[in-house]
């Protein structure tokens, strides 16, 4: 070959090599496959919400996939590789997560819903393997597992319990007076013991007292003795931190004591509506939950879920958390032009905070187009403005106060904004 022919050939080779190093698809768009997995308790105590959580994640991935195909962006793919059942148990959650990481090689895990499972999975699987997790757990210790100065691996799309505990203290103070005597009962796990401790600190700091502070094993055959202890001393009110199924095991003996008043009782976020979880509500009882329905796109999300979710899966407002998480991870990956979890992590704050044009999932195609054009976007979830911090936490602080009604249903009485 003559030397003159070698130069253009060499130039072509250099260009090819450069392009090979950068995944670039048709028309200059990035090319990657983002692999998701969902992890939630689909059997046992968390079965009903867990199955709904999984379904919300699946629908979100399906929505993004459909949008990408409609836009003709065949080089960008999203895949739900698997959905695993943690059974609400840390050990089972770790085994499930190991399968997702080692066999399915996922980039993002949407789950677990529970703090105890998330904590175990984060330490044993996600952090060592640098796989992102978007958890429904509210224990503030979860995001503290993220190494300072490094891209966060654990993301918490719901306000943590260090806020919820203080919100509960404020709500109870408004209702019963800030020096009221409140007996506290919490389930013996990462969620119950942590939130109970946060509340107790906030409550006693405000001048209140906690005459009885009971952390109980929810798997005990009976909770009659715990119920008996909780009504001793005629407290001004009660706070319960548990899941509906096991709370009912405590509530029934409480009612049998004849000394328990649900209208002076308050519950944590998962007690907002026990009837929806398959058990009963206790008329008069109040509970609080971080507002996850203030997003402008929430009604559309609800309608879509009710239309497309599998039969038998019940909609709940907090399903906006896994839903939003899928979109956040995708948009961050798109901005990073990569499915590498650590690169995605570095763009989550960017896509969920101002400045930038605001988009919801309903304008996903426009958000994708904007990112591909190199523009900054601000994604608002169905749950509301997420505004993730680099530590992995959200900074939105609206809380709904729910009350169980005389007809056995439950409804939001009021939404408050909590200023930390």
């Amino acid at each position: 070959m003559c030397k003159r022919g070698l130069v253009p050939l060499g130039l072509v080779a250099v260009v090819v090599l450069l392009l090979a190093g950068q995944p670039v698809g048709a028309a200059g768009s990035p090319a990657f496959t983002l692999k998701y997995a969902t992890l939630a308790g689909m059997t046992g105590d968390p079965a009903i919400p867990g199955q709904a959580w999984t379904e919300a994640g699946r629908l979100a991935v399906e929505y993004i996939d459909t949008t990408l195909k409609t836009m003709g962006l065949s080089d960008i793919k999203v895949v739900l590789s698997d959905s695993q059942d943690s059974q609400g148990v840390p050990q089972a959650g770790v085994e499930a997560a190991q399968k997702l990481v080692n066999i399915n090689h996922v980039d993002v895990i949407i789950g677990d819903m529970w703090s105890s499972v998330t904590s175990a999975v984060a330490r044993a699987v996600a952090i060592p393997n640098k796989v992102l997790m978007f958890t429904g757990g509210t224990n503030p210790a979860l995001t503290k597992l993220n190494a300072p100065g490094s891209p966060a691996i654990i993301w918490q799309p719901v306000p943590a319990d260090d806020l919820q505990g203080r919100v509960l203290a404020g709500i109870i103070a408004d209702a019963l007076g800030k020096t009221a005597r409140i007996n506290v009962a919490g389930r013996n796990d990462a969620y119950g013991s942590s939130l109970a401790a946060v509340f107790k600190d906030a409550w006693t700091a405000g001048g209140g007292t906690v005459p009885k502070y009971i952390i109980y094993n929810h798997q005990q055959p009976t909770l009659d003795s715990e119920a008996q202890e909780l009504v001793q001393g005629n407290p001004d009110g009660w706070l319960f931190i548990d899941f509906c199924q096991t709370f009912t095991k405590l509530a029934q003996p409480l009612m049998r004591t004849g000394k328990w008043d649900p209208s002076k009782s308050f519950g944590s976020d998962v007690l907002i509506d026990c009837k929806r979880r398959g058990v009963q509500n206790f008329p008069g009882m109040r509970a609080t939950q971080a507002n996850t329905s203030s997003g402008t796109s929430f009604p559309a999300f609800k309608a879509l879920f009710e239309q497309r979710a599998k039969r038998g899966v019940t909609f709940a407002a907090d399903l906006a958390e896994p839903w939003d998480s899928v979109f956040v991870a995708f948009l961050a990956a798109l901005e990073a032009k990569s499915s590498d979890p650590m690169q995605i992590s570095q763009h989550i704050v960017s896509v969920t905070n101002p400045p930038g044009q605001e988009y919801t999932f309903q304008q996903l195609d426009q958000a994708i187009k904007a990112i591909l054009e190199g523009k900054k976007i601000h994604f608002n979830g169905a749950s509301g403005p997420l505004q993730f911090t680099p530590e992995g936490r959200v900074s939105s602080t609206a809380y709904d106060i729910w009350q169980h009604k005389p007809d056995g249903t439950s409804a939001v009485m009021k939404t408050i904004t909590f200023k930390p």
Partner: protein
Amino acid sequence: MLEYLAQLTLNGLITGTILALTGVGASLVFGIQRVANFAHGEYMTFGVYVALVLNVGFRQDLVISAVGAMAATAVLAVGIHFAVLRPLRGRGLVALSLITVGLALMLRHLLFLVAGAGIHQYRIDQTAVFDLRIIRVSPGQAVAMAVTVIVAPVVALFLARTSVGKAMRAVSDNRDLAGISGIDVDRIGAYVWLLAGALAGLGGVMFAVVQGPFDPNLGSQVLFLIFTTVVLGGIGSAYGALVGGIVLGLVMDLSTWSGFAGGLDARFRPVLAFAVLILLLLYRPQGLFGKARVL
């Protein structure tokens, strides 16, 4: 204070009688067949769900539902004995016990598949109480205690006074000698499973009546407390299961009384149960009513 103590004592008796009733069947199997049946909790749960179908699905009262649960669980236990455990008996008793672990997992997940993961309750009012001034007890709790107090001695009398019961005890003492002396060891084994299954079904139903809401994890959650009851009372002894259960129940519930140096933190109740077991076994390895054996 006295009222609180009286109520705690009653709570302890309720917990204890439930452990006793659920433990009698396990004790029989452990004592006679020498198998630690880790699927006993799932047999109970199976009985609970059969009763649920009868009580809620077919609107039968709880007595009929409990009888149905006993019959169904007895058939299940015998069926598993013939299909799985008897053919594998030659593998050794440790292997058989381990096989029951697998059976337990299989049964539990079958129940999840068939019955779903949702919470259920029987058609009874869990908030009704008999107010006896210093104590309050629900009708379900009262019935469960009465059933236990009747069933445990009846089982003990059955073992002591009937020909089948005596044959069971002979097999328990020395299987080979019992076989040589004309006892049909295989048939006795089937009878043991039949009885244990029926007791598991009854125990499960009473447990669900006392506890209220339940799901397919019901039996597995209390399995180790049941084994603790069995060992504490003496393996193979119905009276032992009764007394062992009551002792455990009283210890766990009374430990939370503030009169005992402020009372034990509620979350340590199961720890206390095992601590009591260990202490007793140190001084009486055969349990309260068990027979000392040389292995």
